Every structure is written in C-alpha cells, then in structure tokens.
C-alpha cells in the first residue's frame, strides 16, 4: 500500500525553490524593455484637486510618460463593489463609493494616487514625482468615527447626505425582555483600533501587452487572480481568454491582496497598452501604509444580561465601524463582527446594530480575522466582567454557556457574511476548554503559582478565552487533475497561494486518491492560463473550498483510471486498487499498469478511446459548499507584567483548536502559530496612529512595530476534531484562527496579572505607554 498522505506531516513541495531563491515573486519578473511606474500620492487626507501639472515630470531624465485622471478618458471608472450587502437582512441600508484609478476631483485619504509616472527606472520615476505640481484646496479631515456622523462633519462623498455608509440591525429574540429579568447586566464601551496586514512582500504589478497577439499578461500579487482577470478584460474591452493573470509566489497576503482592483492593478495594464512596453510597479513599504487596505477600527457599546447563575439571557451591542474612504468590500467586516460576537455560546436574545462610517483614512477590507477579532473581544470581555461581578471563575461562566455538542446544527437566527443564516455546522466546545485549561495548568496556576509569584512581587496572570469562526464560505472553487504519460499528476486550481502550503496540501489530497507519491504531483495555483474558474484565497477558505474541489477532481480521475485499468487488465472495477503509481488487480501484483501507461492508453492517438468517451485521464470538478464550516477553539496564555516599566512578557500560549479534519498537521499548526503572532502584534505592538488631520504618524517599519522573534512565545497546540458535515473532506478553515481571540485573551491575562482595582482593559491594541496610563489612572482612582 502507498503510505497514507492525507493527514500527515509531509515536507512542503514548494520549499526547495523558496529556500534557494529560485521562487518567482512579482518583483522578480524581468522583461525586455520593461519600464517602471511610480505614483504621486496625496499628502492631504481630504482636499479638492484644483490642478495637477505633470509637465515638469516629463522633463526629468529617463521619464517616458506621466498620467493624471484627465488622461484616462473613458477608462476612468470607480472600482467595482466587490461584495454587495446581504439581501437577506431586512433592516439594512447601504450605499457605496469605491476607489478610483487616479483621483480626479478630490482626494479622500492620504496616499490616494493622483498621478503616475513611467520611466526607465524606478529611481528616475521617483525623481520625477518631485516635479509634479499639485494645487489643492484642503477640506476637513474626517478621522473620529463618532464625529464623522455629526451634521457638521465634512462630507466625504458629496453624492450622499452624510458620512454614514450603512446601518444594519440584526435581532434574535427579545433582548429588552431578557434584560428586564436579568440578575446582572454589564455594560461597557470597547474600542478596537486599526492595524496593517503588513505582509513581508509589498504589493506589485507587472503588465505586458502584446499587441501582435492581442494578449495581456499581468503578474499580480493578488490572492484572487481569476476575478482580476475577468475584471481587467471587461474594463479593457478584450476577451477574457486574451488576458492572463498570474499570481506567482506571493510573499504573504493576510487579506488585502484580495481582488481589490487597486488603482495600480487597474492602471498598469492600461499603461502597458498605451505604451506598448511592459511596465512594473512595486509598492514600497512607505506607500504600503496608504495604498494597501487596512482594518479594524470599531467602537462597541455593548451589554450582557445574565441570570444569577451566570447564564446568558441576552446581548445587546451597538457599534460604529470605520470603513475608510471607500467601501468596496461592502459589509463583510461589520457582519463578521456582529456574528462572531456570539461565539460558542447559547445566546437566547441578541440585538445588534451597527453603522458603517466613511472616514478620510485608507480603505478598510479584511485583514486576518476580518472583523471577528473585535466581536470576540467584546463578548469575552463582557463575560470576564460578569464573572468578576458574580464571583465566578472565568472558565465556569464559559462552561455554563457553551452550546452543548448535541445542539448542532445550531441556527443563530441572524444572517452571516455569505448571506446565509448563521448556522454552526458542528462543534464540541467543552473538551477544548478542558484540554486548554489542563495544558496551561489553569487550576494549579491560580491555586499555587500565582500566589507564590505574587509573594515574590511578580505580576503574572493567566487568561483563557473561546471563539468560533465561520470559515470556508462559497461560492465555489474548481480544480483540474490530469495524469501525464510520464505518470506525473498535474493539479491546477484557480486560487492564489501566499504561503499556506497549497502546493503540498492539495498534492496530498490528490496523491491520496490516485495512489501516487507526493513528488509525482505538481500543483499549479494562481495562473488563469492554467485554470480560469474560481474566486480566490481569503476568508480561511482555500483548503476548504479548493481542497474539496481538488478532491472531487481527483475522485473523477480515479474513476477514469479504474475504469480504464479494469478494461485493460480484464478485471472488474471493484478489483482494481491504486497504489505506488500503478493500478493493479488486488491480490495479483503482476496484473498492473502504471498510471503513465494508462495515461498513454487514454490518449486518442493510440486508439484506446472509444466513441463517447473522453480522451485522457483528466477531470475538472468544482466544489461549492452549501454554507461555511464553523471552526472553533480555546486559547490560553500566561504573561508577566513589569508594573514599573509597563513592559509585558508573554510566557506561555496554548491553543486547542477544532478545524475539522486536518490535511497536514504541520501546516495547520504553522497557520495557527503565525496567526497568534499576528494577534500578539495587535495586542501590544501594532497600531496605526492617525492624527486629527488624517495623517498616519507611523508609516514605516521604524514606528509600526511588527512583533519580532523576541516578542512572541512558543505556542503549544492541540486539537479537537469535529468534522464539518458541509464538505466531503470534513475540513474547516484555519488561516485566521490564531489571530482572532488574542486581544480578548491578552486583556484578560493582563488584568489578572495586575489585579489593580478599577483597571479594565477595554481597548486594543495597547502599548507600554497606554498600559502605563491605564495603571496610573486606575491607581489615582483608588
């Protein structure tokens, strides 16, 4: 038998190329005659453009062209609305304004592109930027999301009567009645601020128009090449078949490399068609802080009502959501916050209302966690506060409110981001909590370690929180699996890959079905020339949706192989087994044909194809889940605070997660650990700081602090497996899980470590400075 591959820790297929510097990233594309593009970006957060004069730029050595909005003619169009609001939510208003290729009449955030310069080198293009004259008439910046809704706030999109983009109410049960009979209601205001995705590779686009063939090739750091291909073809008026978008190796995505139709993504192909030369734009780190989308300012006013035993009677939440200057991504993020807030708990009554607000800040779209992080923060913090009021242990209040294992599927009676009802497919939360508590030594820590450390003058605290994450949403992905006469298996899917190990996990899925070794499977992702139906890698859906499509295609090929082998070996299909790269008759090892032989036989030139059958051992299949699968988990942490310096050291971190059936445990663990690091960044290091004029004050890696190796702990992981019933492989997504509950966990552990009366952590991220202030304020209130 072939060694089982699915579910095992095989080394990644893509690693040798990456380790030796041979993997192709977008900036590695070199084409003959390639020109380089740099963008002049707005220094102002909100201003009317009076005049843009690029004539000076054209005089600069090496400059080939310079463009403003006026040069774009008909091509100047606002970008598409990528996600429309769920039509299934009744109480919903929504209006959208999407980003434009180059600002024409006004700029709505710092960094919005105003002009593009094309030169023989990036150095020269940047020289020319200094020679562009822009006359603006500043309008007031809109930064604070509460002030943005005031009648006197400057209006960002003048076609609307206010800066409110949306107002949504979702309800379940009767919260007021629940509150009326509650023994305890806790109410607080919570704030979750903006952070950046900050993949190590910035964005980039190379576009090459071949006029003779009428073909456009675009290398793009996108998580979703197929939608980009389709959109570009439409905008440029060329057939989809004549546009090839390649997302080669991508140096991390974490959300914002989604099918945004960023200005640069739209302009580079157009410029290449104008000039007839290949053009390249590589975002630099400074511009990435404006030109790439961000997340997640939300301000929640929330309350939790409980009975005397700590059972949840209802939750009420009203929040403001910062959409940034444009809202092409619709309502995905606030709806995620709204839905994820409910967590693994039985919440009989829920009233949730939000307003999405335009501000003069960079655009907001999903970043790892995608709105779920603030939702979890609000609920978990409310439970902590309630437990404290009730004198109840933090794990006990959660235990009492978990949905029991027989509650699934559980309908929360509100609508999720995929427009379908929020139904949890599966889960078993108590074992996760108990496992995590045991792994971190929760009881012993509280009973023995903490008092001892406290006596030594050390401030060490523990936290434990739970969350649920909707993953693996539709609509669909596809895959084509084919066997070559050499016996090699090719797999092509449409999703892009940004480090998730798809080259390996998809190969594992296919190799398992076809009985071949991993090195015999070649996976191609992210090239519309190879596969051109699908959506993209986001929302923790790659493995779930594309993985199941690979599985479905492999199953079809397996059937073809078995059918042909049975025919060729004079056997019945039931007797054929696939192993070691061959199809053979069970019990008769001599009666076997290699997959390569069978692929050769399936080739019509050799006469083995009868009328009505298809040539080749090849199949394409698609998978579209009815609805997403629900991953969940419990995180626990021990941290130490130095109350004198306000520096924090995370000493232990435990994750028990349920992402259904696991394809490759090492890869999943890598996703979780990486997510935790991103989450810790969002607790104590990473915060995008805007001043009241809409200027980002930390637009570099000197001041926007990604956690380093000395800032993150080792993460101990374990898992509980409840397979998703919504896909054949039983998989759930894992890409975002690590980052989602970290803020809630950090806050709880911090309070536990400090135990300063009145010190409540109701905001994320913190910093040493902010923690110093919180401690000082709490002490002065004593």
């Amino acid at each position, binding site marked *: 038998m072939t060694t089982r591959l699915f579910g095992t820790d095989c080394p990644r297929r893509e690693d040798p190329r990456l380790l030796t510097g041979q993997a192709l990233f977008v900036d590695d594309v070199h084409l003959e005659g390639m020109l380089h593009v740099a963008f002049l970006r707005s220094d102002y957060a909100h201003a009317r453009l009076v005049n843009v004069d690029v004539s000076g730029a054209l005089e600069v050595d090496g400059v080939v062209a310079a463009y403003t909005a006026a040069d774009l003619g008909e091509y100047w169009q606002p970008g598409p609305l990528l996600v429309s609001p769920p039509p299934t939510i009744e109480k919903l208003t929504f209006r959208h304004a999407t980003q434009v290729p180059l600002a024409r009449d006004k700029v709505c955030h710092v960094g919005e592109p105003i002009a593009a310069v094309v030169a023989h080198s990036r150095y020269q293009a940047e020289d020319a930027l200094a020679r562009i004259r822009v006359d603006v008439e500043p309008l007031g910046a809109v930064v604070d999301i509460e002030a943005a809704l005031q009648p006197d706030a400057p209006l960002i999109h003048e076609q609307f009567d206010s800066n409110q983009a949306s107002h949504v109410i979702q309800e379940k049960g009767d919260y007021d009645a629940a509150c009326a009979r509650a023994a305890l209601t806790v109410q607080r205001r919570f704030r979750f601020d903006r952070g950046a995705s900050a993949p190590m590779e910035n964005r980039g686009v190379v576009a090459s128009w071949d006029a003779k063939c009428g073909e456009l090739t675009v290398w793009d750091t996108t998580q979703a090449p197929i939608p980009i291909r389709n959109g570009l073809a439409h905008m440029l008026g060329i057939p989809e078949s004549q546009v090839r978008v390649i997302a080669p190796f991508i140096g991390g995505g974490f959300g914002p490399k989604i099918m945004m139709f960023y200005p640069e993504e739209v302009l580079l192909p157009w410029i290449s068609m104008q000039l007839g030369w290949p053009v390249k734009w590589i975002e630099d780190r400074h511009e990435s802080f404006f030109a790439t989308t961000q997340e997640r300012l939300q301000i929640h006013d929330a309350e939790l009502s409980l009975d005397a035993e700590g059972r949840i009677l209802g939750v009420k939440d009203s929040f403001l959501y910062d959409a940034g200057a444009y809202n092409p991504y619709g309502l995905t993020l606030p709806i995620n916050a709204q839905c994820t807030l409910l967590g693994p708990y039985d919440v009989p009554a829920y009233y949730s209302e939000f307003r999405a607000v335009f501000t003069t800040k960079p655009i907001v779209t999903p970043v790892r966690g995608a709105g779920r992080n603030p939702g979890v923060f609000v609920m978990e913090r409310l439970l902590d506060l309630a437990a404290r009021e009730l004198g109840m242990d933090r794990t006990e209040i959660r235990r009492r409110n978990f949905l029991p294992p027989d509650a699934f599927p559980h309908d929360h009676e509100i609508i999720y981001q995929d427009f379908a009802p929020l139904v949890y497919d599966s889960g078993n939360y108590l074992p996760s909590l108990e496992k995590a508590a045991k792994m971190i030594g929760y009881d012993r820590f509280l009973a023995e370690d903490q008092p001892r450390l406290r006596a030594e003058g050390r401030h060490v605290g523990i936290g434990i929180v739970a969350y649920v994450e909707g993953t693996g949403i539709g609509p669909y992905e596809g895959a084509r699996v084919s066997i070559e006469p050499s016996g090699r298996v090719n797999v092509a899917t449409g999703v892009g890959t940004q480090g998730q190990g798809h080259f390996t996990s998809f190969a594992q899925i296919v190799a398992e079905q076809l009985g071949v070794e991993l090195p015999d499977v070649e996976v191609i992702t992210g090239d519309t020339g190879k596969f051109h139906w699908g959506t993209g890698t986001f929302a923790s859906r790659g493995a779930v949706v594309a993985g199941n499509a690979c599985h479905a295609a492999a199953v079809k090929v397996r059937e073809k192989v078995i059918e042909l082998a049975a025919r060729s070996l004079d056997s019945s299909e039931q007797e054929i087994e696939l192993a070691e790269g061959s199809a053979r008759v069970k019990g008769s090892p001599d009666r076997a044909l290699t997959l390569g032989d069978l692929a050769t036989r399936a080739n019509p030139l050799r006469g083995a194809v009868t009328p009505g059958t298809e040539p080749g051992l090849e199949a394409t299949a698609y998978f579209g889940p009815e609805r997403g699968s629900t991953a969940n988990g419990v995180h626990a942490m021990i941290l130490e605070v130095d109350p004198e310096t306000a520096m924090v050291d995370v000493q232990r971190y435990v994750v028990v997660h349920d992402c259904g059936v696991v394809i490759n445990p090492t890869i999943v663990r890598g996703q979780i650990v990486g997510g935790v690091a991103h989450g810790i960044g969002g607790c104590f*290091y990473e915060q995008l700081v805007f001043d009241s004029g809409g200027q980002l004050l930390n637009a570099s890696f*000197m001041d926007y602090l990604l*956690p380093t190796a*000395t800032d993150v702990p080792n993460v101990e992981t374990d898992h509980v497996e409840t397979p998703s019933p919504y896909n054949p492989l039983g998989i759930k997504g894992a890409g975002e899980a690590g980052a989602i509950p970290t803020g809630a966990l950090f806050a709880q552990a911090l309070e536990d470590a400090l135990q300063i009366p009145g010190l409540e952590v109701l905001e994320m991220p913190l910093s*040493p400075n902010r923690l*110093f202030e919180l401690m000082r304020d709490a002490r002065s209130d004593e």
Partner: protein
Amino acid sequence: MKPAPFLYRCPGTVDEALALLEEHGYDAKLLAGGQSLIPTMNFRLSEPAVLIDLNRVDDLAGIEGRDGGVWIGAMTRQRSAERSETVRQAAPLVAETLPWIAHPQIRNRGTVGGSLAHADPASELPAVALALEARLLVRGKSGERWVPASEFFTGLFATALGPEEILLGVEFPAVPAAAGWAFEEVSRRHGDYALVGVAVLVTSGSGGRCDSARVALLSVGDGPVVSTAAAGPLVGQEPTAGTIGEAAAAAARDVDPPSDIHASSDYRRQLVRVLTRRALTRAFNRTQGRE
C-alpha cells in the same frame, strides 16, 4: 523609496576627505556606516549633493588599548568593538552597551564614530561616552583637537564638529578602581530606538561609600544628558535602596523628556526613575563584586 542622485567621492586618506569637505561645503555629507543616513536618503528626506564615503579611508578604523583605557577609531564597526577583548577589558560599559544598538546586521555596518557624530538623542554611544567622560579626537584643516564628550554633544543632532572637520575616534579612559557600571534601556522591541536608556559609572571609596556617580540618560532630550542631580543623594553616602531611590527620583525630576507616539513625557520620566534605580543598583553591586 530610492535615493536621489548624488556625486560619490571615495577618499583614501583623511586629508583627501578634508579637502573634499572643503571643496563641497554644505552640499557634502560624510558617509560612515550609513545605517542612519541611507534610510533617510531612501525616504528622500535627505538629498545630499555629494556623498564622501569614509569607508575606504586608511587608518580610521582600529581599536587600541591606551593607558588602561581604549581608543576606538571612528570607522570601527560597532560589531568589531563589541567583539573586541580590548574594549571588554578597558571599557566594559561600552561592551555592555553595544549589543543594545539595533541588530547585528546594522552593527556590522554601523560605526562607532558615525553613531557619535550623528548624535541622535536616542542613541546609546553618546550617553556612554558622557558617562565615561570619553574624549573625542577631531581633525580639521588646521590640525587635530581633543574634545571632551561633555562638550562634544551640543544639541539635537548637533556636535562640536565644524563643517569641515572629521571625527577620528574616541578615547575611553581607564575605568577607575572600585568602579561599577551598568547600562539599562527600555525599547518597544529588542533593537528598537530606546524609549529611555541610562548609562552609569559609580566608584566606591572607603567603607563602601559612594565616591562618584555619573548618570547619563538618553532619549530624554536633545542629546545625551548627564543628570547631576542624581549624583547628589549618593556621593559620600552608602549606596542603599534609600539613597539609590532618591538618586533615581532626582534624575526623574531633572529631565523634561519629549513625547512621541511610543512614549509620553510622563512615561519617559517614570522610565528614567526605574532604569536609573536599576542601573545604579547593578553598578554598586559590581563595585562590591556581587556581579
């Protein structure tokens, strides 16, 4: 983020470098390790017309023991100084401090003289030079002169170096007998700019009483600052938790630190108090051979 064009000059001797400085005047910038200048140029916040690269100048790098102290040539890489046994023996506070500067990749390129001449208020070496009462050797057209560290740092990114002068190196004097030293720093992450740092050198006399205490602070003002107030409660006294605490409090009262997005003035003042106390405690422990 690509630098603007410049003329590149690469002198082989100090005299050639001085001649180039004279020729190009204010348009020229000296390039030492470049670990502060080149990022500024990449952001196009600095566009010097001429860059005079000191990396090929003979005799500007080198470490040499001198009368129990140590001479470090201006173009000595920070990493070389960090690895130097001579530095460790003669100027242990310098050796203790160097690893706090950024990361090894930066220190492999960054120079001791570059850091001193750049005089960033958040950088470590200027404060250490003050704490140890180092002196700096400067050369101009008219010859060489020694400048005590206390006169070298004149303000924000400002030094006593004239526009046509070059820093040749720094001499740290021998550490006195019965001395203790310590460097403490708080930064957001390992290797980041200090939110506050403190370098101390203390000496003990008979009966364990403190003879002298020099407390130099960084990232609390325009440049490195010696807190004379901190010495008051200590000199002539036994270094107890009480006197050290008073000294730390005096240091905190003595400064008026700036605010930025990472640290408010109040938080910096708190860090001055805590780090001064910790550094003094360690330093006095060293005088008594407890560390």
